[in-house]
C-alpha cells in the first residue's frame, strides 16, 4: 500500500476530485497548506510599506491506495491538476505499512 501526497493549486481541487472519482477512487483527506517554491508570491502594500507574501495557499491531498493503482492515480492527478504554469505543485509517494479502518477494525487493503 502507498500513500500519495499531492500539493496542488486550490482552485484545481474540484477537477482533481472529479478525475479521481472517475477512476473509482472515493477516499481522500485534504489540508490547507502554504507553499514556497519557484512560484513567487505577490507584493502587498500596507500604508506604504511593501511586504512580499512568499507563502502561497495550496491544498494538500492525501490518498492511501493499493500499490498496483499508484501509477494510474499519479497520472490522473498530474493531468487534472496541471495548468502548465509555475506553482502547479508536486506529488510525493511513500510506503504505507498498515491501514486500519477505525469503524470496523479492518486492516490492510480492506480498510481503504
Amino acid at each position, binding site marked *: 500500500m502507498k500513500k500519495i501526497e499531492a500539493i496542488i493549486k486550490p482552485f484545481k481541487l474540484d477537477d482533481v476530485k472529479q478525475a479521481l472519482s472517475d477512476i473509482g477512487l472515493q477516499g481522500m483527506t485534504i489540508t490547507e497548506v502554504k507553499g514556497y517554491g519557484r512560484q513567487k508570491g505577490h507584493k502587498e502594500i500596507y*500604508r506604504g510599506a511593501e511586504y512580499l507574501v512568499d507563502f502561497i495557499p495550496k491544498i494538500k491531498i492525501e490518498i492511501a491506495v493499493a500499490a498496483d493503482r499508484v501509477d494510474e492515480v499519479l497520472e490522473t492527478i498530474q493531468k487534472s491538476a496541471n495548468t502548465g504554469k509555475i506553482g502547479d505543485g508536486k506529488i510525493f509517494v511513500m510506503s504505507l505499512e498498515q491501514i486500519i479502518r477505525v469503524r470496523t477494525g479492518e486492516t490492510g487493503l480492506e480498510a481503504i
Partner: protein
Amino acid sequence: MTKKSMLLTAVLLLMPISSAFAADVIDSGDTAWIIVATALVMMMTPAGLALFYSGMSRYKNLLNTFAMTFVSYCLGSIIWVVWGYTLTFGPDHGGLIGGLDHLFLNGIDVNSVSGSIPTFVFVLFQLTFAGITVALVLGSVVDRMKFSSWIVFATLWLTFIYCPIAHWVWGGGWMGEMGALDFAGGNVVHINAGVAGLVLALVLGKRKGYGRDAMFPSSVTLTALGAALLWFGWFGFNAGSQLAADGVAGSAFLVTNTSAAMGALAWMFAEWYFTKRPTVLGIASGVVAGLVAITPAAGFVNLQASLIIGLVAGVLGYFSVSTLKLKLGYDDSLDAFGVHGLCGIWGALATGLFASPAISGASGLFYGNPKQLVIQIVSIVATIAFTAIGTLIVVYITKFATGGLRVELDQEVEGLDSALHGERAFEIG
C-alpha cells in the same frame, strides 16, 4: 430665523421679561439633537475607533487594541465628571486653566442650562471628546505598550494635557480669546492626539521586526466597518458642536460628509496612481483623513472649501503614511500622527484660509482676513509645543511610575492578547 428666536420674538412683543429668563430656556429640539450627537460621539470610541484600530493592528494584538480603546473611554468618563470638566470649563484662571468649582459636577443640577440645552448634556457631550482624544493617541503605540502603563498615561495625559488645551480653546482660555477658530477640535483633538502619539511612539521605540517583518492588519474588514461607524459618529462630533439644531449645524453636517467622501476618493486615487492598487484600507483611511481635516473648519467653511479640504487631506494622508513615515523612520503603528496630526494641522490652516463670513461670521484669508491665518498658525504652534513637551513629561512620569512602558520582548513576540489578557480574538476554527 429659527423657531426659538421666533418664539422669543413673539413672547417679547407681548410682555416684559427678564433676559436671564430668556437665556435659561431649554429648547427640546436642540436638546434632542445634542443628546443624540453625544451618543454618536460616544459610539465612536468603543465601537468605531476600536474597530478601526484593532482591524489595523496585528492579529495577535487585536484584543489588546480593543482593550486600550475601551479603557480610554472608561477612564475619560470618570475623570471628566470628577475633575476634568471643572479644569476645562470651570471659571477661568489666567486664560490657562479652569477652577475647581465643579469637582464632581458640584453646582450643576438637573435644572442647569447651557445655551439652550441642559448643562448635564453639555458636560456629557464634552466628555465624549475627552474620551476619544486620548484613545486616538494609542494609534501610535499599539503592539508594544504595557496595559498598566497605558492606564496611568491616559489618566495623567487627560488631566495635564487635554484639559488645559480644551480650556484654552473652548473653556474661555487664551486661544479662544485670541480668536482661534476650532469648531470641533482640530487643535484640541487631532493635532493634540497626533503629536502626543508621535512623542509616545518615539520614547517607546520601534516594534520588534519593524521594517523587516510583514505586519499585516488583522482585518481590513473590521477597519472598514470602523471607518463607516466613525463617519456616522462624526456627524455628532461636527454638527453637534454647534450645540443646536439649526442652519449652521446643517452646514457643518454637509461639509463634514463632503470632506469625508473627497478624502476617501483622493486617497484611493492617489494610491491607485502610485501603487496600481486602490485598497480598502486606503479608502477607509481617506475617510478618516477627510473627517479630521474638516473638524476645525466644519462650522466656518462652505461646500466648495470642503471639497478642497477633503481632497488635500486624502492626498496628504497618503503621502504621510507611505512616504514621510518611511523617510523619517519612526514607528507610528497605526498612523495617529500621520493621519490625525498632519491632517489636523491642515484643517486648522484651512480654517484660516477658507472661513467664510456667510456661515458663522468668521472670515479667513480668502475672504480678506489674513490675520485669521496668523492666529491659526499661532494656535497650531502653541498646541504642538505644549503637547510635545507636556506629553514627554507625562510619558517619563508614567515610565517611572509603572517600571517601564514596554512589554517584555517575548510578550511582544507572543502577542499581547495572549500574553496580557489571556484571550484570543476569534476562536472560529
